[in-house]
């Protein structure tokens, strides 16, 4: 059958599109979709060490969420993730917003500060965790030494060993590490605000606080959406800082335990609990994945609606 020039062009176009689209699809399926689906499948089997045993339906999910052994551990860790989310929302993203405002006003040396604020983000999390572990050492750490030197001995504590301060210390270390990121995003958002809006507000004699609250904050809502969503994902996947600073057990006695640590211990075991349970580990990972996907999408949709177009 003869092919018309038009058909030939379409065919050429289509094969060109296929040539561009197929490799990434294959790549994504192989390295993203397949592992996710297989982890999902693993969760329905019993595992003896690394050998797959029988199909057990939802038993692993049941044990992870409601079991006598795993249930309390998982919910305890989940609660700490929620704390971390709320605290980081206020300290990390809120602090980022204020820092961005300061930088936006271009104070003396703002170019230097803009870089300085972002530098910790670039550092490896392992290094930051280790650094803060040294700072918080109760006997020779910087934090307690500083407190002693100004006579505030009563405030000095074994920060990472005290159940009432350990999780807070991890959250602060994390905020120190990442505060540069929300700062940068908010700063970009502020610089997108047309300058006449801010000038008009100033001419109307608004106070700094009113300007921030009623003009700047609503106009950087798209930045808030993206930052909150990212923080949500980050807070529930939190692993590196706790792992480096308090170890796999969420020391002291589980008061800093988070879901990432529980997952790692369950699936791969640790020094003091040699049991590797891929089934329960996969079940926990699956639940966590679904939770993050569902809530992050809902949050994004909800936050999008309150954004203002300009």
């Amino acid at each position, binding site marked *: 059958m003869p092919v018309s020039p038009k058909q030939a062009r379409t065919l050429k176009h289509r094969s060109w599109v296929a040539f561009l689209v197929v490799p990434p699809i294959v790549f994504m399926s192989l390295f993203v979709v397949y592992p996710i689906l297989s982890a999902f499948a693993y969760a329905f089997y019993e595992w003896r060490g690394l050998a797959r045993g029988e199909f057990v339906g939802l038993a692993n999910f049941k044990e992870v969420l409601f079991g006598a*052994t795993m249930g309390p551990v998982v919910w305890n860790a989940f609660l700490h993730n929620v704390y971390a989310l709320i605290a980081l929302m206020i300290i990390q993203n809120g602090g980022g917003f204020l820092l961005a405002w300061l930088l936006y006003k271009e104070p003396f040396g703002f170019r230097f500060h803009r870089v300085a604020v972002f530098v910790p983000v670039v550092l490896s999390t392992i290094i930051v965790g280790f650094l803060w572990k040294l700072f918080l*050492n109760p006997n020779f750490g910087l934090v307690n030494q500083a407190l002693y030197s100004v006579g505030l001995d009563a405030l000095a504590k*074994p920060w990472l*060993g005290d*159940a009432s301060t350990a999780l807070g210390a991890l959250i602060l270390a994390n905020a120190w590490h990442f505060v540069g990121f929300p700062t940068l995003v908010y700063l970009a958002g502020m610089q997108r605000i047309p300058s006449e809006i801010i000038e008009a507000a100033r001419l109307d004699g608004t106070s700094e606080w009113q300007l921030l609250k009623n003009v700047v904050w609503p106009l950087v809502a798209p930045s808030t959406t993206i930052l909150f969503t990212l923080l949500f994902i980050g807070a529930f996947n939190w692993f590196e800082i706790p792992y480096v600073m308090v*170890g796999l057990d969420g020391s002291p*006695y589980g008061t800093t335990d988070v879901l990432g640590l529980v997952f790692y211990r369950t699936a791969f075991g640790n020094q003091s609990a*040699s049991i*590797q349970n891929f089934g329960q580990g996969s079940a926990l990972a699956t639940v966590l994945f679904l939770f993050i996907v569902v809530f992050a999408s809902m949050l994004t949709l909800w936050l999008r609606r309150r954004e203002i177009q300009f």
Partner: protein
Amino acid sequence: MKLTRRILMGAAVGGYILSAGAAMAKTELTFWSWRQEDKAFYQDVIKKFEAKEPEISVKFETYAPENYQTILSTALAAGRGPDVIQVRAYGNLESIATPGYLLALDKQAVPELANFPDSALAAETLRADGKVYAVPFATQTMLVVYNKKIFKDAGVNPPQTWDELVALTQALKAKNITPFANGTATAWQNETIVAALLSSQLGKQFEDDIVSGKANFTDPRFVNALAKLKDISTNFAPNFTGVDYASSQQLFVAGRAAMFAGGSFEVANFKGQNPSLDLGVFASPVAKAGDERLIARYYDGGYAVNAKTDKKDAALKFVRFLATPDYGTAFTNTLKNLSPIKGIKIEDAITQDVAKLADNSMSYLMLVRFRYQEPSGSVLLQSNVQKLLAGQQTPEQAAAEINKGIATYYKPFQK
């Protein structure tokens, strides 16, 4: 058609050349370990082995200890992995041996198994089939390491009884010396501290009673021992709840604390960091004079053969070599780490002391008996002792929590 034939011919010729080459080449074994710090020693051992077996060569590869189990499990699950594997013991061994990744060793294939005490072989035995899967490499003991110079300067001697230990800590404190370098921020340190300080108070009979189910962890022997630990913990490092493993080691190495309750494996480490340290060891003090003095003992792990290896004979030869008294002697004297092989010659005075103390021992209880199921006895002991020493629960509460966790799966406690 012609082309196909040519390709086939070429493949046949190539295959022949390759197989001929393989027959002439050495058998190369790969040997995985987590002991990066022992690399020089192992390379030396391999050199000796290769001199003895010229047709075999061994490639030694190490991975970070915290990831070793994960990397090894993944490789074995994928049907790869090394020919000879350094494996851990007890519950950890079971997770690798149960799926059939390791070759079972018997006295026919490895006659050198006769060189080991039964308790060492038990550490590398799968409970399900009673077979040995690895040749054990090190005996570890939990005891108190002390700085001889500090003791001498303070005019004190190693204690025999708990009361003497209390008096000793007071004498040291009066001279402004931190008695114990220990801290509890690193979870597993709590387990080593319990074993190093309390074994003589618990006693072998307690272990037997736990195993038979005659007693459980709410037993007064256990609760009272924990209460003693709580009392003595005021002599640990300042702010000990926030002092992690590395910091407590540093305190001891720097000579700022007199004692370290922990593993015999610390000695070599301390000496490595500060060769001028003059160290001694003593077993956990007894409750009253005349009681049996005990240390807690376990075995680190062993050398196993991959069940799927196609170089079984060579791998077995290497593993047998690692089970000889000559190897045990070299291991002990080079690494200052006690080999469980009978008939080794120990040069080092402190390792001789450790070996002597190891003659009178009970198990490092939670590792040896309760690391097979969740929640593991070790995790329970660690977190509850951590909580006890932080003043957040009483010895009775800690003991009850530990018992409750183990009773969820341990039949003798469910009666």
